[in-house]
């Protein structure tokens, strides 16, 4: 059954939610959301350079009907604002992307990036501490060696659980332009970072050099016509990756072909519909996100008005196109004026690749079932967020008589946009970031 009944679990931070009701700090705006590979952890990054990680509570036997809720697990400052004095450039601390590494030991690792620097963070738990040092006392003060008469071996004693995040690697100075994507390779040894014109390949262990694998910077910048907008590794083939462009094209590259993947292996482009041509055709065709399906057989792309699913074996057109909010097509000029047309919406697959989800305005987000071809519009708002409440499908009225529950296009609040969403890798749990609030919904099983 596709139409899942979602009920909100917990806002990002209960107290912060109420505080933000009055004073929304611009640095609290969530800029990325990502589940880890098991879905146990959910990481969010914000404009202030902070990362907040939520952990799903283990289901208790007492309350078996109560699904695991997500609570704050760790919070740390990942990036700080920087100033490049040489170029007189301020570097924003906003976290553009977070990507988890698969778990290989007790600790969790994630990559977080701002415009210029990628960092590898280790998040680990500490529930024991050493006691019985010889050279320092219990408060950590150094002892006078002369007072030590006996030696003892320190022992580990249990302590309250503490989660600490430490930066293990800093991958800096490799990008002249703004980093828009990072993607961990399926070999778990390398990852790539992409900026407007270049893509670099890194080894996790090496921070002072990276390989440039894509470079679309023209020799003469006057000839610049397109930029890289997103990039991702294939989920299984460690030699394959895709990157999307501002011209609405996707290139699939094979790193075995050559060191510099300037020549694509596949080129995905849909011919433009001449009847839709306008001043803004180019802007709305710019791809804001590209995601491989979990199976690795398809890619999904998001441009301003649509989501498209492409089969890797068919380059000349997508196999599926979904209209996210086509009623905006007649309002492009206004959206250009207020800059909304530049909003970069992301898109996500569910665990089985049968449903895709993406955000829209007015805190609406949309889901499309690829099999039944049904779609639904839901809203992430405080009014709907009483725990256990079921989300009601919403509808936008495009013209004619507006029904009672519908909202007209002109009433949409364009300042409330859902750009970032995430879907649990195996369950029907979704995380939706609405400005500075995080909503987590799950399906209700009767």
């Amino acid at each position: 059954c596709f139409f899942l009944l979602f009920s909100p679990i917990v806002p990002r931070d209960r107290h912060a939610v109420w505080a933000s009701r009055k004073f929304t700090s611009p640095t609290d705006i969530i800029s990325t959301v990502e589940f880890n590979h098991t879905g146990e952890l959910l990481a969010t990054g914000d404009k202030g350079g902070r990362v907040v990680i939520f952990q799903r509570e283990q289901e208790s036997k007492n309350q078996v009907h109560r699904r695991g809720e997500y609570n704050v697990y760790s919070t740390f400052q990942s990036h700080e604002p920087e100033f490049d004095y040489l170029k007189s450039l301020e570097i924003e601390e906003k976290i553009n992307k977070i990507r988890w590494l698969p778990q290989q030991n007790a600790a969790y690792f994630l990559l977080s990036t701002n415009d210029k620097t990628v960092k590898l963070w280790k998040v680990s738990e500490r529930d024991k501490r050493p006691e019985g040092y010889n050279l320092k006392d219990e408060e950590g003060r150094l002892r006078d060696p002369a007072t030590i008469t006996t030696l003892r071996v320190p022992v580990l004693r249990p302590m309250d659980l503490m989660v600490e995040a430490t930066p293990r690697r800093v991958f800096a100075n490799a990008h002249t332009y703004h980093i828009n994507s990072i993607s961990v390779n399926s070999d778990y040894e390398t990852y790539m970072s992409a900026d407007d014109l270049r893509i670099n390949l890194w080894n996790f262990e090496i921070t002072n050099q990276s390989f440039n694998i894509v470079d679309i910077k023209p020799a003469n910048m006057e000839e610049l016509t397109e930029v890289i907008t997103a990039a991702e590794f294939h989920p299984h083939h460690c030699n394959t990756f895709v990157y999307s462009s501002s011209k609405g094209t996707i290139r699939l590259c094979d790193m075995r072909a050559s060191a510099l993947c300037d020549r694509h292996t596949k080129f995905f482009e849909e011919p433009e519909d001449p009847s839709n041509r306008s001043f803004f055709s180019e802007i709305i065709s710019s791809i804001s996100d590209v995601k491989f399906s979990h199976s690795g057989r398809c890619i999904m792309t998001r441009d301003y008005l649509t989501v498209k699913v492409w089969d890797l074996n068919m380059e000349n057109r997508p196999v599926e196109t979904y209209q996210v909010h086509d009623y905006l097509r007649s309002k492009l000029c206004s959206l250009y004026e207020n800059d909304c047309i530049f909003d970069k919406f992301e898109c996500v697959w569910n665990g089985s690749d049968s449903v895709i989800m993406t955000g829209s305005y007015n805190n609406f987000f949309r889901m499309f079932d690829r099999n039944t071809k049904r779609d639904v519009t839901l809203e992430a708002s405080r009014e709907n967020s009483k725990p256990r409440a079921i989300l009601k499908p919403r509808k936008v009225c495009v013209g004619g008589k507006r029904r009672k529950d519908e909202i007209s296009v002109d009433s949409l609040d364009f300042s409330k946009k859902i750009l970032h969403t995430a879907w649990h890798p195996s369950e029907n749990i979704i995380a939706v970031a609405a400005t500075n609030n995080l909503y987590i919904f799950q399906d209700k099983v009767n």
Partner: protein
Amino acid sequence: MEFKLEAHRIVSISLGKIYNSRVQRGGIKLHKNLLVSLVLRSARQVYLSDPCPGLYLAGHPGAPAPPQQPEESAAGPPAGWGEPPPPAGRAAWPEPEPQPERPAVPEVLRAGDSEPAATVTAAGDTLQGGEAEAPEAAWRRVEGPRETAVGGAGVSGVFPEGPEAARGPCGCPPGDEDKLSAPPASPPVCARKRGAGWVGGGPADCPAPGSTPLKKPRRNSEEQPGGEEEEEEEMETGNVANLISIFGSSFSGLLRKSPGGGREEAEGEESGPEAAEPGQICCDKPVLRDINPWSTAIVAF
């Protein structure tokens, strides 16, 4: 006609965005600016291709007609952009056709030199090393009459007039300005009359694209457009130069020759400027009112 006005409006919005992007935190966003420049290009094409005899089209450098200016301005900065000033030794500047108009502005605005040069960067410096003095001086001069903006120039306050004077660096050495001050009687006169009201009025060949009122440090990064020679890439430079180049390549044709006979139209409209007051040219009232902020925006660039 509607298309033209729409295109006009879009151009002015786009220029505003590009201007604002320069002061945005985090540096110029290449992607967004590229998209804006594409819109600008489309709007320009529509503007030029829509045959509306009443509107002044860009192209004729000699006519200082205000109605003309927006178009030229639109073309101007780009033209200047695509071709950095000679001192930089890069692409050649467009022929100084628009120069005859330029002098009118500095002359007119000289009086209103009230703005401190604080906001005026060594815009000239950025692209023109040695010619910094004249451009800066011109910038200061231009900044004066900001409040005398005309018509719908509420927007004009947004864009510093400084860039206007940036025309100085646009390949026109200080000395030329005087020379150009006394060009054909009517254009400068008209321009001058208009100048009081015209903050943005002036030659379209908006000079130093890089010469906007930015903080001095930017100068360094903008000294090598494209920054190809530098081992360490200068994103700032690259971006600005890109925009410059992009606009330049888009608009440089305008000055020389407009598709669709823009030049002819411009010539035909030369008498128009003599109507002097903006808004009085019958079919162009709405356009004219918008022209002010538009050209200032362009000049600001």
